[in-house]
C-alpha cells in the first residue's frame, strides 16, 4: 500500500446510510477495478475502516462514525475519479435490486440417493435405480442406490466379479435385488429396460442372466400367447461360485410373492454345483411352479423349453412364427456362417447346428477365434472384445452388415445365419442393411436364414421386418433353434424343407 499523494482524491461520507459490510467489500472491488483508480474504499466508517482509510493517505471529516458510509477514491486524474464515483453510485444502487427471490435453487441431483429423495418429495417414490455408468464406477453407484432402499438394475458391463459379489452380499442383507451387472434386458411392471421387447402382460415371470436368451424366452412366450409378468435379469455370473446366486434367489422370491405371476421360468446358464443346489432347493419350496431352461450348454434349445412351459400352462397347439420366401437359391452344401448380435443366440445356434454338422466354432467379431475361410463358424459381434470401443451391434449393425455382404459373396458359404433383435434400445430398422445386401447379391448367393427375436408389439414392427426380409429372399424364423437347425441342414446338404 502506497501513501504517495495522488493527483485526484475524494472522500465522501453519507450519514446513516447503513449497508452490509460484505456487500460493500464487493462494491469496493468494483470501484477499484475502474481504470485509473489507485485505491478505493467503500465501507462503513468503523474504526477498522477509518484505519484503512488512513493507510490510503486519506482522512474522514471529524464526527464520522460507524453508522456512516464512506466512499473514498484515489485516482490518477479527475476523469478517473469521476468514473470511479459513478461506478460506486451504480454498484450501491444495484445492491438493493434483487431477483424475484422465488427462483428455485434446483441443482440436478449428483447421486441416486438425492434423485430418490426428490422423487419421494414429489409424492412419486422411485421403484428402481438404473445404473449404466462405465463399469469401474458402477458398483459405487449401485451401493448408493441400495443404501437409499432401492432395487438396482446394473446395465453396465465390465464390473469386476469381486465387486459384483460384494454388491450382492450387501443387497442380500438389505433384502434388495441387484439385477445385472451387464443386465441388458428386463421387464418390470410393464416397462422394458435396456434392450427389451414389448411383450404382452401375462402370467409368466422370467428370471434370466439377462441377455438375448431372456429376450428369446419372452418373445417365444409372447408368440405362444402367454405373456410375461416380469423379467428379472440377474447377470451372467450370478450362479457362479464367486457370486453365489443371491440375485437369482431374491428374484425367485419376489416373483413368488407377486400375485400376477403364476409360473416362473428360470433361464439358467451352467451353474456352480453348490449354487445350483441352493437354487433348486429354493425353487422346490416356492408356491409358484418353476421351470428351468438351460442355455449355454451343448443341448440348449430355448424354443423346446418354452414350448414345454406353454404346454404346462395349457397354451398348446401353436407353431413358432416363420416367414418363408417363394423360392430358395440353388446352392450346394458347404460352410455355415453365423453372424450374431446376441451372445446367447449365437451360442444356442452353434450348439444346435453342431448336432448336424459336428464342431462349429464360435468366434468374436474382431476376427479372434478364426477367420471365415472354410469351416463352420458362428461369430458373435456383441462380444466384449468387439464392443469395447464400438456401439453394440444391436444399436448399430453396420459392422455385422458389412460382414454379411462379404459372406454372401463367399463361394465356400452354403448358408448364412443371422439374428435380428428388435425392441426398445435396438436399432430402429435392423432389417434394412440385410435387405439391401441381399438386393445386391447375385442369384448364386448362399441361403440366408434369419432368427428374428421380436414381439408383435415391438416398435420396429416385427411383421414388417419379417416381410421385408422374406421378400428379399431370406427365410425368417421366430425360433432361433429352428433357424439354426434349418441352416445346419442346408449346410449339410439335406433336402430343403
Amino acid at each position, binding site marked *: *500500500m502506497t501513501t504517495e499523494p495522488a493527483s485526484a482524491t475524494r472522500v465522501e461520507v453519507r450519514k446513516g446510510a447503513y449497508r452490509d459490510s*460484505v456487500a460493500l*467489500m*464487493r462494491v*469496493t*472491488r468494483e470501484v477499484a477495478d475502474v481504470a485509473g483508480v*489507485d485505491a478505493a*474504499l467503500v465501507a462503513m466508517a468503523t474504526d477498522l*475502516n477509518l484505519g*484503512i482509510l488512513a*493507510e490510503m493517505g486519506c482522512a474522514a471529516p471529524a464526527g464520522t462514525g460507524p453508522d456512516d458510509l464512506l466512499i473514498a477514491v484515489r485516482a490518477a486524474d479527475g476523469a478517473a475519479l469521476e468514473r470511479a464515483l459513478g461506478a460506486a453510485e451504480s454498484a450501491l444502487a444495484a445492491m438493493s435490486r*434483487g431477483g424475484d427471490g422465488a427462483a428455485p*435453487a434446483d*441443482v*440436478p*441431483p*449428483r*447421486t*441416486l*440417493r*438425492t*434423485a*430418490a429423495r*426428490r*422423487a419421494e418429495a414429489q409424492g*412419486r*417414490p*422411485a*421403484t*428402481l*435405480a*438404473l*445404473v*449404466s*455408468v*462405465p463399469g*469401474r*464406477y458402477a*458398483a*459405487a*453407484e449401485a*451401493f448408493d*442406490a441400495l443404501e437409499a432402499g432401492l*432395487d438396482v438394475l446394473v*446395465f*453396465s458391463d465390465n464390473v469386476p*466379479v469381486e465387486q459384483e459379489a*460384494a*454388491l450382492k452380499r*450387501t443387497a442380500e442383507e438389505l433384502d434388495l*435385488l441387484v439385477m445385472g451387472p451387464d443386465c441388458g434386458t428386463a421387464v*418390470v411392471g410393464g*416397462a422394458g*429396460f*435396456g434392450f427389451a421387447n414389448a411383450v404382452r402382460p401375462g402370467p409368466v415371470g422370467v428370471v434370466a442372466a439377462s441377455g438375448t436368451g431372456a429376450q428369446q424366452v419372452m418373445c417365444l412366450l409372447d408368440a405362444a400367447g402367454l405373456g410375461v409378468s*416380469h423379467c428379472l435379469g440377474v447377470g451372467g455370473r450370478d450362479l457362479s461360485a464367486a457370486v453365489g446366486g443371491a440375485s437369482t434367489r431374491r428374484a425367485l422370491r419376489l*416373483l413368488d410373492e*407377486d400375485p400376477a405371476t403364476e409360473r416362473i421360468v428360470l433361464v439358467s446358464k451352467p451353474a*456352480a454345483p453348490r449354487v445350483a443346489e441352493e437354487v433348486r432347493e429354493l425353487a422346490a419350496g416356492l408356491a409358484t411352479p418353476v421351470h428351468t431352461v438351460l442355455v449355454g450348454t451343448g443341448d440348449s434349445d430355448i424354443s423346446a423349453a418354452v414350448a414345454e412351459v406353454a404346454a404346462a400352462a395349457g397354451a398348446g397347439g401353436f407353431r413358432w412364427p416363420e416367414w418363408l420366401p417363394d423360392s430358395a437359391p440353388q446352392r450346394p452344401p458347404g460352410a455355415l456362417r453365423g453372424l450374431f448380435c446376441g451372445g446367447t443366440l449365437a451360442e444356442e445356434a452353434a450348439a444346435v447346428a453342431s448336432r448336424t454338422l459336428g464342431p462349429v466354432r464360435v468366434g468374436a467379431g474382431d476376427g479372434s477365434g478364426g477367420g471365415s475361410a472354410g469351416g463352420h463358424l458362428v461369430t458373435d459381434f456383441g462380444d466384449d472384445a468387439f464392443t469395447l470401443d464400438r456401439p453394440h451391434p444391436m444399436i448399430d449393425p453396420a459392422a455385422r452388415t458389412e460382414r454379411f455382404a462379404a459372406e454372401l459373396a463367399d463361394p465356400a458359404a452354403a448358408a448364412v445365419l443371422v439374428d435380428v433383435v428388435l425392441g*426398445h434400445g435396438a436399432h430402429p430398422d435392423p432389417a434394412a442393411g440385410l435387405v439391401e445386401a441381399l438386393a445386391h447379391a447375385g442369384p448364386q448367393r448362399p441361403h440366408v436364414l434369419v432368427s428374428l427375436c421380436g414381439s408383435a408389439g415391438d416398435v420396429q414392427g416385427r411383421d414388417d421386418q419379417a416381410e421385408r426380409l422374406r421378400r428379399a429372399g431370406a427365410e425368417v424364423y421366430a425360433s432361433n433353434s429352428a433357424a439354426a437347425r434349418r441352416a445346419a441342414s442346408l449346410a449339410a446338404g439335406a433336402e430343403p424343407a
Partner: protein
Amino acid sequence: MSRSRLLTDDPVVVASGARLLSEALEAQAVPVADTDFHPPMAAPGGGDTAGDLVRVLADPRRGAANAEAVRRVLGVRPQLVDVRPAGEALELRPGSFLHAGPPVDWEHASGPLRGALMGAMVFEGLADTPEDAEAALRRGGAELEPCHHRGAVGPMAGVVSPSMWVFELADADTGRRSWCSLNEGLGAVLRYGAYGPDVIERLRWMSRVLGPLLRDAVRAHGPVDIGAILAQMLQMGDEGHNRNRSGTLMLLRTLLPDLLAGGAPAGDVAAAADFIGGNDHFFLNLAMPAGKLMMDAARGIPGCTMVVAMARNGTEFGIQVSGCGDRWFTAPALTPEGLFLGSFGPEDANPDIGDSTITETCGIGGFAMAAAPAIVRFVGGDADFALRTTRSMYEITLAENPAFQLPILDFRGAPTGIDATRVVRTGILPQINTGMAGRVPGTGQVGAGLVTPPAECFTAALAALAAEAPTLPAAG
C-alpha cells in the same frame, strides 16, 4: 420380507449413466430422474480411487459405524461452562504454543502463523520485540502443537499461549470438554498474523479484564447452552462461520445481567460489553468449540468414513477421518477467492488457514449458507447460490441435523457429517466460508471469501480407509 416396490408399484426410475436408456423409458411413459453423474475424483499419483471406493463401500462395518457416528454427533449438547487461562485449562506450559491445523514447524509455517507466534512470544514476555521473538522461534525456542491435539480449536493462526484465556465447553451428557480462545475482533489482530503494540495491548486487556469478567459471569449464570444459540442464529441470518452477528448478540444478552451483577467496575463491564457487541465474530470462538465437541464424539470408530476434522495451518490443509484414528491427510492449502479489504488484493492473501473449518465439519458455516444469504456477496453470487451450495452439501453428508434447521429449505436439518466416500465419489468438495490473512507476517486480515479443501486430502483418506477395510471376496 420385502420392502421393495419393484413389482408392486408402477415403475418410477432414478438413473445414473446413459441418457439413451432413460429416453427409452420415457418413451414408455415411465417417469425417470437422471443424476448428473461425475466419475470419482482421480487420485494424484494414479491411485485406484474407483477400486478404493468399492472396497470401502463394501466394508461390512461401514453402515453401522456411520450410523453410530451420526448418533453420537447429533447427541452432543455443547454448553459453555467456564472461561479460564489456557495454561490452566490446557496444561500449557510457558514456551508452549498451540496453533491451527495439522502439525507444522517454524520452517514451514506461513506468514500469518509466524506473525501470530511472534506476537504471542512478546505477549508472554518471552521476547522483548517481534524481531527477538522471530530469532528465538527460528532457533526452535518454542514448542508447537496443533490445537486439535489438545481438544481445542483456534481460528486463523489459532495460536494459543498459556496466558491467553479460553472458553471451556462441555457436552452436557458425557462431560467431555473442548476449548477455544477469545475472539479479538477483526483487522490487525494476532490470529491474522498481526503483532503490533495495539495487538499485544488488546491481548493483555483480554487476559486482565475480559477473561475474568466472562469467567465470573459464566460461573454465576451456570452453563450456557451454545447448541441452542447456534440453532437460533441459523434462523437469524448467521451461518456460524463468517457471520456470527445474532449469535454474538444472544451471548451478550445471556451474560449481560451476570456481567453487571458481578460487582466489577462499571467501566470494565462497559468496555467488555462494547468489545463483545462491537465484534460480530465474537461468537465464532464458541461455535468452533461446539463443533469440536460434536465431531470429537465421532472419533475413532473402526470402518467409519465420517470426516471428524478439517483444519489448516496456513501451509497445509488437513483432514481426519473417524475410521483412521488421529492420522492427518494433508495437502497444500488453497487460497480463498473473495473480497479484499481496502487496497489489498489476491497477491496479498495467504493460503487458507485456521481451525474454523470445524464449523463446516459439523454442518454449519458454508454448509448452512442457505441460512445466511447475505454471505453470497463474498463471491458476487445471488441468494440462489447460497441455496444451491447447501443443497449440494447434502450430497456429501451422512445426516441432517434436526437441531440446526434451515427455514428457507422448509426447516430441513443442516447437512452434517461429511462422508469421505461421497466426496470422492461425487467430486463435490466441502464448501468453506473463511477469512483471509495477509501473506506477510504482521499484516492482519486482508479479506474474506470462499474456499474448498484440496481434493487430495479426500483421495488419500479414502485410500487409507480402503487399506483398513477387509479385502473383497476373491473371485472363485
